[in-house]
């Protein structure tokens, strides 16, 4: 098994550069301004170990070419968001039918970030206007939720969207820290982003957006991978790639455990 794990790790490592290039989206810049934002994290991979109970990651960044005077008057704002992999998501609504509560209506949405943890220098409404935020998918309330297929009675759409955001927030997958970004020196900032214990595995993105006097300046994105490690990864891959063998191993393990139990505790 050890060699299998090793092999797996090696194949993962070789796959990384190609994936990172693929996932690295182009940097968006407003050419009107000369300022640039840059960010970095200490790791490009978060490992979920068997005792994983969430993690705090710190994103460091700098504003290049910032105007000293504007910095002093807090004219620059930074929003840092960690977005999880995009997954098609369905919201279902229970209704009482013949005395029992059953799922009656459902709306399926285009892939949305499975998790979203955001930090900013100030509460979002103080940074810029709603239209600007919505156009860039910034903030829990501005993540685009586009229904797919037949919505049926469209009047319920708002309710379903609110419910989705509410449940995501209640489960800790969507979080916001309106004062989580702090300037540590003139142009250097630090953003604390919290990863919940139930963080989905896959390709995440750290997005940093710079605003100057309520106007968009630049957006920078770097990838962050969340992976299961060691045994967890091995079991997951085994269960999905060799499901028949996995099922047989599960049965064998149960048979052995039951047999050992009856031998150890045999009374006669």
């Amino acid at each position, binding site marked *: 098994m050890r060699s299998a794990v090793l092999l797996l790790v090696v194949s993962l490592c070789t796959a990384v550069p190609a994936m990172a290039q693929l996932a690295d989206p182009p940097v968006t810049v407003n050419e009107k301004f000369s300022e640039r934002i840059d960010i970095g994290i200490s790791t490009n991979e978060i490992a979920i170990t068997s005792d994983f109970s969430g993690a705090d990651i710190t994103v460091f960044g700098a504003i290049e070419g910032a105007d000293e005077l504007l910095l002093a008057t807090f004219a620059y704002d930074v929003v840092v968001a960690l977005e999880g992999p995009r997954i098609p998501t369905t919201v279902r609504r229970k209704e009482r039918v013949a005395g029992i509560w059953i799922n009656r209506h459902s709306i399926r949405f285009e892939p949305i970030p499975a998790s979203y943890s955001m930090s900013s220098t100030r509460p979002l409404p103080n940074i810029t206007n709603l239209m600007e935020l919505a156009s860039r998918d910034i903030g829990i309330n501005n993540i685009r939720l586009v229904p797919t297929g037949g919505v049926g009675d469209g009047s319920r759409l708002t309710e379903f969207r609110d*419910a989705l955001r509410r449940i995501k927030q209640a489960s800790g997958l969507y979080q916001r820290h309106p004062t989580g970004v702090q300037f540590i020196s003139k142009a250097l900032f630090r953003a604390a982003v919290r990863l919940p214990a139930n963080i989905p595995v896959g390709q995440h993105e750290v997005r940093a957006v710079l605003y100057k006097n309520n106007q968009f300046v630049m957006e920078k994105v770097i990838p962050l991978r969340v992976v299961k490690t060691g045994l967890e990864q091995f079991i997951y891959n085994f269960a999905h790639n060799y499901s028949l063998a996995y099922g047989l191993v599960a049965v064998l393990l149960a*048979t052995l*455990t039951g047999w050992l139990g009856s031998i150890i505790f045999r009374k006669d």
Partner: protein
Amino acid sequence: MTIYLPIAELSVNIFVILGMGAAVGFLSGMFGVGGGFLITPLLIFYNIPPAVAVATGANQVVASSVSGALAHFRRGTLDIKLGLVLLVGGLAGATVGIQIFSMLRRLGQLDLIISLLYVVFLGSVGGLMLWESVNSLRRAAQNKTVSLRKPGQHNWVHRLPFKMRFKRSKLYLSVIPVILLGFAIGILTSVMGVGGGFIMVPAMIYLLRIPTSVVIGTSLFQIIFVTAFTTVVQATTNFSVDIVLAWLLMIAGVIGAQYGVRVGQKMRGEQLRAGLALLVLGVGIRLGLGLVLPPDEIYSVVSGSFGF
């Protein structure tokens, strides 16, 4: 102390899982049932996705029924021929059940059907058992002999064709009702994640008039194979067997069962049946309330494979 479940994809408290396994093991040892009907709802109460709870429950029952069937085999209270006939129906039923399970999951009604089946079966079986055991407790108090099986008395089941002789059970019986019973339990195994002992045992005693002494061993014997089959099929079609979760439950369950058996041996048969009836009814009522009472959140979100 938390442990990350690789298939359920969430972190759980290891002591809660071990405690659940031990408690269910204790009760299953005491009452001679597999315990699947307790473990699956408990896992769902603890926020394990229902699809994972059902498939993992089936895997856990393999361990407890192997343990139990071996004990019965040594004591000679296991009718292998009868078990094999039940198994024919059981495997067919499990195959059909898996299809139903996958279909319900696509429709988004899996949780509802699982809960409804539990309420219906636990409610009716628990109610019948309670009725029967209270009656025999009353008769025992009046010093009358207690007998579940009335020899010489035949019902419609015994007039069916394709009869077969089962030596150990001292029975000459049509294979049709045996296969049908196995088939029905097979469906329940894959849809509910239970072994089905709590339905199988009363049905064998009251419907097929099989001697009580061989019933538990024989039902455990065929449950091993049906739950093993279900585990493999769930693993290949729904990828929902969590081996880490199942193993923790098994270990605690096998140990808990030993203490349960000791306590069970000190109690009288009618008391045991009444206790089991109350337990079965209790779980049924708890699940029934969950369906009827207004939920805190009427919306639910499903993303990825199992949702949350």
